[in-house]
């Protein structure tokens, strides 16, 4: 308590905001922001300011040491998976230009994505250790196998298209006949792994102690497949003449609808304190922009998708929307791990809720 003459003219402290002084082990929030979006960018969240103690404001869980390459891979893996699915559809329905463009897109995206993945490893020269074991409890292990299986099919199908574009100038020799024979099955094989490639990254993020990702574990798979669908369809709309791009337009619209719904559900169901990381600061801006671009791209596709210029512009908007979704969720997770508040508050709340419900035997802290 201070004893200043001016205390009497101070405005009263808002209820529930008062914090007792002299508490050891409680640090200021690292970003200096008040809870509830005190940066002025958003209205304050309507959640009571829970009692929050931490060890000098230091993180409880460690942020994952992943760079932007991993966020880029989340996006590119989605584009690759979706493109392979579109390519297989075009293969079955005999739309050759769409097939070619989607197969090449799948190969290109998965190649760049894989390089980004390997480059982010602490020991890139040991990347092949990913294939030492098949481990069902490790989404990264399963994902490595999915990526490998997908890349095989995508590489064969893509090589066949590249050979056709270059007028059979690839030095294939007698292998050309083999390539022609297996490109169809390879395209279908890649498509079979395409949705898995698009979705496993959601489980990879959710199966961590990073608060934002873990709290979204029910909805993140739906957000990611929707984002992958609209991005790959958007890319096909950019590369393919409108006459052959009708399936891509439909997939784009379905993807936008799925993305908007899944994202809304994710925001609503998430712990209100953790959800701050999706609303505030840079990730919040990215996710809002992503939503706007997805809506714009979807409307453009619906209304002007049969005009080449509008289709291409809508496709670009959808690609950007998907990239922003992935980078936004990626950065929100890192941010949630760096602030102990997002680990401690939801945990205290769920512990208190279980105790209130009469479950008192599963706490890590015991009286004896």
């Amino acid at each position, binding site marked *: 308590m201070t004893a200043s003459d001016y205390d009497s003219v101070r405005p009263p402290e808002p209820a529930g905001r008062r914090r007792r002084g002299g508490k050891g082990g409680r640090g200021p929030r690292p970003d200096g922001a008040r809870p509830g979006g005190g940066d002025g960018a958003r209205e304050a969240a309507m959640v009571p300011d829970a009692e929050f103690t931490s060890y000098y404001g230091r993180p409880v869980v460690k942020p*994952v040491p992943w760079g932007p390459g991993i966020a880029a891979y989340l996006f590119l893996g989605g584009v690759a998976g979706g493109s392979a699915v579109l390519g297989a559809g075009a293969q079955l329905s005999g739309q050759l230009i769409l097939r070619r463009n989607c197969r090449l897109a799948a190969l290109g995206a998965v190649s760049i994505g894989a390089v980004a993945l390997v480059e982010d490893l602490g020991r890139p020269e040991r990347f092949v250790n990913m294939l030492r074991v098949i481990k069902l409890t490790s989404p990264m292990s399963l994902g490595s196998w999915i990526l490998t299986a997908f890349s095989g099919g995508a590489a064969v199908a893509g090589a066949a298209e590249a050979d056709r574009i270059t007028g059979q100038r690839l030095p294939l020799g007698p292998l050309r006949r083999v390539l022609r024979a297996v490109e169809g099955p390879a395209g279908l094989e890649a498509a079979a792994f395409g*949705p898995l490639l698009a979705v496993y990254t959601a489980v990879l993020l959710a199966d961590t102690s990073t608060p934002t990702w873990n709290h979204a574990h029910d909805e993140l798979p739906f957000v990611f497949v929707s984002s992958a669908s609209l991005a790959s369809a958007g890319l096909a709309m950019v590369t393919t003449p409108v006459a052959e791009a009708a399936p891509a337009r439909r997939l784009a619209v379905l993807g936008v609808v799925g993305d908007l719904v899944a994202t809304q559900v994710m925001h609503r169901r998430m712990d209100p304190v953790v959800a701050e990381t999706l609303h505030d600061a840079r990730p919040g801006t990215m996710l809002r922009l992503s939503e706007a671009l997805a809506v714009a791209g979807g409307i453009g596709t619906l209304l002007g998708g049969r005009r080449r210029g509008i289709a291409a512009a809508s496709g670009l908007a959808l690609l950007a929307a998907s990239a922003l979704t992935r980078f936004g969720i990626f950065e929100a997770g890192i941010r949630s791990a760096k602030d102990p508040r997002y680990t401690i508050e939801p945990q205290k709340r769920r512990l208190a809720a279980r105790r209130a419900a009469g479950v008192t035997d599963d*706490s890590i802290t015991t009286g004896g």
Partner: protein
Amino acid sequence: MPQLAGPTDPAADARWPDVKPRKGFFTDTSICIGCKACEVACKEWNHNPRDGDLDLLGSSYDNTGALGASTWRHVAFIEQKRDRIEQAQQTGRALVNLGMPGLGPPVPAARSSAESMAAESMPPSIPTSTPVETTPPDTDEFRWLMSSDVCKHCTHAGCLDVCPTGALFRTEFGTVVVQADVCNGCGTCVAGCPFGVIERRTDGTAAPKTKRGERKGEQPEVPNLGVAQKCTLCYDRLIDDETPACAKTCPTTSIKFGDHTDMVTQAKDRVAELHAQGRTEARLYGANELDGVGGTGSVFLLLDEPEVYGLPPDPRVPTADLPRMFRQAGLAAAGMATAAALAFLGGRR
């Protein structure tokens, strides 16, 4: 697939043919003096390089900061005033009143400050017939909390579950160890750990230092760069029937080492003893096999809420929810395939 949650013997669950008794620590923070000998012994035995630039963190006597790739023991230091002490006693008493498993009779109320004042004002040289006064000679006005944190060696270890290479493995002693020559530094385990223990080792060159005193003294080359590193519970020493370096060096026996069952028994006896002395703020952390990680191999006796020490109040191994995540992912992937099929079934226009 191994068991994902709930009580189990981790070494047997990992299908070791010759399961040894599970080993673990019991860190009794009520007798820790914050000397950091454990930090030093750990660094020395495990050849762990220096963390950071010998900077003072400016928050307390703890200038180590946190557990990390090169810091496998970390002594937390907290100074508290009276209101926090009273609050800790209340939260501790609430835990006892919850009727947690394995609890004794209700504890007596906290000793009054008048009593303790009387005990302290008594000249120590006068021999008395009553038993030696064992209550700590603190004041009720403030206290120092010191606690040596370490890897929890969880029954269900988040880091181990998500490791894609098999570099992390469960030893025959039920502990969790990284094989540095297998790890490719993917970093998934760092996010998997609910306690923020494991970390990928860097040499600190990612962010060039421009501050004064840039390299304080010659440093040996950093081993195991770019791979995940954490406490091994001195696996090499365990194999030779030796005590881990930190427990061996601890001058107050705050860090105890032994069979996990013995450690839990000792912890429960000790917390009962402290409660009998009226120190209701004492509580155990990690001694309950029904918790979110199936119980920890390293058990702690704390004198305040876990988050005060930087520990999570209700950790849950993320892999416990993995079947549910796989189900959601399967639904989502099927939805994507269906959407694509619908897109093509709609025709070419």
